[in-house]
């Protein structure tokens, strides 16, 4: 077993353990920090799979921006900080059964359908991504930028306090 495989398996185990901690911990801030770790190890896995640009985009966008948004959301909605038992539903058996069923069926299909080895190329893919993103995929690229603009404006409009639109007696 080569060093490459050992490091890959270690990263996979770390992704799963931190991902489990996101849904199992009873502390909301710990869940957000565990999501940071999951995304960081996912970026490491992307680097191992020679997708360096996507790995750094993941680090920048998720760990840099999305997690900060989540922490703001946790603080603003006054989620109970610290340990509390009220965070989860009482019935945990049914979700566990559903997710285990989905996991077993998905992994059965994947294991029986695919096999083979993934080999890693040495050179970076950033130059190719730039050419393809602004060449063949320029229309989806522009549409996605428009979606981001719409989401930005929508977020501002939704979160702004407007007394004339929302008064307590209208609810």
């Amino acid at each position, binding site marked *: 077993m080569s060093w490459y*495989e050992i490091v*890959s398996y270690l990263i*996979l185990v770390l992704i*799963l353990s931190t*991902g*489990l901690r*996101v*849904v199992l911990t009873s502390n909301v801030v710990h*869940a*957000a920090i565990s*999501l940071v770790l*999951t995304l960081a190890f*996912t970026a490491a*896995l*992307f680097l191992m799979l020679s*997708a360096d*640009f*996507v790995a750094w*985009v993941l680090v920048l966008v*998720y760990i840099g921006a*999305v997690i900060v*948004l989540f922490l*703001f*959301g946790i603080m603003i*909605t*006054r989620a109970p900080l610290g340990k509390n038992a*009220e*965070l*989860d*539903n009482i019935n945990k058996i*049914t*979700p*566990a059964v559903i*997710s*285990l069923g*989905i*996991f077993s069926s*998905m*992994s059965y299909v*994947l*294991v029986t359908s*695919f*096999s*083979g*080895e*993934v080999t890693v190329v040495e050179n970076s893919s950033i130059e*190719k*991504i730039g050419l*393809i993103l602004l060449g*063949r*995929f320029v229309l*989806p690229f522009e549409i*996605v930028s428009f979606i*981001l603009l719409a*989401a*930005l404006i929508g*977020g501002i409009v*939704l*979160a702004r306090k407007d007394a004339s639109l*929302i008064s307590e007696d209208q609810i």
Partner: protein
Amino acid sequence: MNIIPILVTAAALFSIGIYGILVRRNAVMVLLSIELMLNAVNINFILFDAFLKDVLIQGQIFAIFIITVAAAEVGIGLAIVLMVFRNRKTANLNDFDLLKW
């Protein structure tokens, strides 16, 4: 490296996200679990891109699009949660029964 362990890991991460969505009561925690599921999908895209050696590297391009749309989704989702919290004074999903009759 064999692709089966990475595929099974991505499937497990997706199932963990589904468990989180079903079991959590807080709306922000549900959004966190959705991020886990999107992350699992991204792992699959990057893995198959490296496995199939696509000339157009469409797996990585699509992963970038997913990351962008996920960022937009988080912004809108948290704005909606904030809006409901302002009106109902709670972020508990069991209390979001405004449309129930």
